[in-house]
């Protein structure tokens, strides 16, 4: 099983040179730590920044400079700041190439739920609905099962949806999976020391296995 850091590390392998990328809160934020230094990419923050830099040193902390998770950040050379309408114009307009976000559930058709548990928890969708409706490539970072052991990869989502038919790839603590356009989770890679049978038993939606499933590779 992968740690959160390892999930982030595996997702970082999907990043390509020249991309503008939006990272969601939680595991996706960690992806920034593992993007190879030789790739030039720009991280977008939905609250109005292109060019997110590392967390500040104690003496550099600026309350007027935060990311979507309300963490204090810095700006890299070449950054730009803008208002919220401009931020979502670049998101909806398809200018952001890659979106990485967390989820509570994903369906075998690529539907995603991540903003509400009726009667229990209402945090709101924030920018997630705009992002999943518009990004060309959407990768979900999440645990394969919920804390009480239920599969989060389902035939259909039971929670209120954030977006429909939008997720392309899922990286969990157990596996890398792609959504089949016809419906189903195509098992592409398994975590080190995790068997195909274990993934099968923990995937409630349709799991598609095409030949030998390789183990994930980490440098």
């Amino acid at each position: 099983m992968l740690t959160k850091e390892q999930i982030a590390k595996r997702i970082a392998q999907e990043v390509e040179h020249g991309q503008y990328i939006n990272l969601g809160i939680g595991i996706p934020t960690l992806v920034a730590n593992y993007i190879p230094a030789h790739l030039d990419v720009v991280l977008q923050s939905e609250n109005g920044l292109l060019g997110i830099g590392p967390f500040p040193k104690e003496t550099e902390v600026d309350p007027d400079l935060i990311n979507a998770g309300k963490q204090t950040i810095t700006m890299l050379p070449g950054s730009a700041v803008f208002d919220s309408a401009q931020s979502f114009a670049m998101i909806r307009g398809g200018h952001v190439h890659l979106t990485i976000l967390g989820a509570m559930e994903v369906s075998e058709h690529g539907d995603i739920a991540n903003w509400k548990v009726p009667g229990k928890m209402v945090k709101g969708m924030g920018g997630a609905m705009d992002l999943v409706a518009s990004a060309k490539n959407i990768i979900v970072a999440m645990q394969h099962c919920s804390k009480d052991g239920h599969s989060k990869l389902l035939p259909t989502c039971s929670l209120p949806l954030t977006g429909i038919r939008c997720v392309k790839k899922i990286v969990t603590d157990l596996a890398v999976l792609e959504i089949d356009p016809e419906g189903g989770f195509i098992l592409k890679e398994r975590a080190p020391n995790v068997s195909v049978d274990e993934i099968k038993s923990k995937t409630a939606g349709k799991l598609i296995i095409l030949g030998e499933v390789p183990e994930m590779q980490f440098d």
Partner: protein
Amino acid sequence: MIDKTVKNVADAVKDIQDGATLMMGGFGLSGIPENCIAAILKRKIQNLTVISNNAGVDDFGIGLFLNQKMVKKMISSYVGENDEFERQLLSGELEVELLPQGTLAERIRAGGAGIPAFFTPAGVGTEVAVGKEVREFNGKLYLMELALEADFALVKAWKGDTAGNLIFKGTARNFNPLMATAGKITIAEVEELVPAGSLDPNQIHTPGIYVQRIFQGNSYEKRIEQRTVSS
């Protein structure tokens, strides 16, 4: 130049009445109109409709209004940092309209720009789409969303001049410039108020035409929600 200055914050908010619709700038606690919030809290205005991306935290920002039960309805995109908000929402005391953040931003922009409605892909196939017109353009589905306006827009800028021109700093800009355009009366509080002519016209983010009242705020706390530092 038309002078937009008012004496102080009490003067700026003195005619906000019970039942008013307020837009309030900020993302999290960054760029919120702290002085206006304190003055409205003092006046104990009731039944407010508040349009703001977030709802503050339990003891700061819009959270202070919620504690005093001053808010009838919130229109927001993310409210996850405020337990009292979640409690009032789940118990039905507070009416809440949750919107995708880009939809919220664009509805405000449209309100200020004379665009009554627009189509967006955000929320198609979700409960956000319930009751809204869905139309297909080039093979993709979109929702019709309506413009938002407010009786008062309360915005916070870094610098401003007596003509109402505003300059924002960093990510404290967020919703502030949009809301400035969509208030029937826009009240701007700034960290530094300078005479008209002192700011470079090329650097203005919000032209003074959108601002009816401006004052220099004081004692900004600028609370940080998630102080995160590198070693």
